[in-house]
């Protein structure tokens, strides 16, 4: 008995965490058996079992593969472009005062505004299809990355800059040896935000501006009251999001071996 208790103590965090999720799913599953749902709601009600079945079905039948590929491409291209643009621009903005003062109002305004207000415009300019979504993903992910890179560069340690310059480093070496490593924690934090924004961009972009992709599947299913598909799509996105978050965490651990302890970020 005591042994079980101590084992429980050791794993309490995981047991409680998973326990709650299982309990939640169970309660959801049993709801229609225990209470009589109002007519309107019953039409849209589904249970975890049905969702899982549907998801399994979609995956094994290959129905979802193409759309998943489309969504994945949009995500990768959009996020990749935003990294390519944000890092150099952030480095430059962090080091040139005038440029930074001029860009600041634009960056603040665009960052504060959810980028999907531009969706109708983007669809008008880039047409219905994958490129509109790519653009939405791009502008969604760009600003958190840009702002964080810029903050990181601005907060570079003056002493370290002097140290490295005293050994005769040129501007490029200074970037490589001090500025970039110093900004890395900021950039990673920006990347984490950017991933969330990028996924949001994929979903919303496909909802309103595309006829392909997992987001489109969900929108179409919702229009036809096929609730299982909506939740199955949500789970797919949730999976991508968790995998990406874990990848960033790995990257962060890799890059921050030199740090005293993990900085908790929320």
């Amino acid at each position, binding site marked *: 008995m005591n042994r079980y208790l101590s084992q429980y103590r050791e794993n309490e965090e995981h047991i409680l965490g998973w326990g709650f999720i299982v309990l939640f799913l169970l309660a959801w599953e049993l709801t229609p058996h225990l209470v009589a749902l109002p007519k309107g709601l019953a039409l849209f009600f589904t249970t975890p079992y049905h969702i899982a079945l549907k998801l399994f079905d979609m995956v094994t039948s290959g129905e979802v593969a193409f759309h998943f590929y489309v969504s994945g491409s949009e995500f990768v291209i959009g996020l990749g472009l935003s990294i390519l643009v944000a890092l150099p621009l952030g480095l430059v903005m962090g080091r040139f005062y005038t440029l930074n003062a001029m860009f600041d109002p634009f960056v603040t305004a665009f960052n504060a505004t959810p980028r999907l207000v531009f969706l109708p415009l983007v669809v008008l300019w880039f047409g219905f299809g994958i490129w509109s979504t790519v653009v939405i993903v791009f502008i969604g992910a760009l600003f958190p990355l840009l702002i964080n890179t810029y903050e990181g560069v601005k907060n570079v340690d003056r*002493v*370290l800059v*002097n*140290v*490295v*310059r*005293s*050994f*005769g*480093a040129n501007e490029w*070496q200074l970037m490589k*040896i*001090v500025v970039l*490593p110093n900004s*890395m924690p900021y950039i990673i934090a920006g990347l984490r935000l950017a991933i969330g924004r990028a996924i949001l961009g994929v979903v919303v972009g496909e909802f309103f501006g595309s006829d392909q992709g997992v987001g489109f599947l969900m929108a179409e299913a919702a229009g036809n009251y096929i609730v299982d598909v909506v939740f199955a799509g949500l789970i797919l996105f949730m999976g991508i999001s968790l995998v990406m978050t874990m990848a960033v965490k790995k990257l962060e651990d890799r890059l921050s*071996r*030199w*740090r*005293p302890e993990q900085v908790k970020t929320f």
Partner: protein
Amino acid sequence: MEPYIRSTDITLTFTPKNRDPVTALKDFRIELNSGEFVSIVGPSGCGKSTFLNVLLGLLKPDMGEMEIGGKKITGPGVERAMVFQEFGLLPWRTVMANVELGPELKGESVASRRPRAQELINLVGLTGFEGHFPHELSGGMKQRVGLARALATDPEVLLMDEPFAALDAQTRDLMQAELLQIWDKHKKTVLFVTHSIEEAAYLSDRVIVMTARPGKTKRIIKINLPRPRGYEMRLSPEFNDIKLDIWNTLKDELNPRE
């Protein structure tokens, strides 16, 4: 003999954003012989660090110029290296990689710089800590890394800006003794900034006492104590007389409000 380092009158004024300009150095001049150990003491804010940065080639004076070995200083150079008060270690680099920084920036290959870095790490007593990151070291160890790093480019001149100020008293005594040994063995020219009169007297051939800002030389005190100097020497009456002399020169410059 021609002095190894010399300057004309140096004047430097900072003009920071939104603030009044500050003249940190006014007509400050200095002459150092090769292999000499010279300390600078002076009130806080009198321009000591500023001067070291000029000598290091990071700051350009408004007036005056400096020569080293007959060549004008126009920027950082391999014959000079600084040990910084705040250590200035790159936190994302291991001890080894920090020590290797100078040679690396000079473009030396790993094969040629590694053995020398290892030698220096052994010299400062950090054998076994090559793979550690700065946050895993104590203050004294960090400053040993700083010293090894400065020595790695084999400079003629070591500039040291209050290098031991952040250390506890015992570690400080130890580091001073080690520094003297290294200096003796490697025949460097050392310019050493400190707030500790005792430290200046113990280490130096000459002590430069600076005035309050804008800093210039008030007096140069020669320390005619025999070398090698041991710990016992610090308890001798001659040593105390020298300390008193430095103190008397310095005390009028100290502003009680600061």
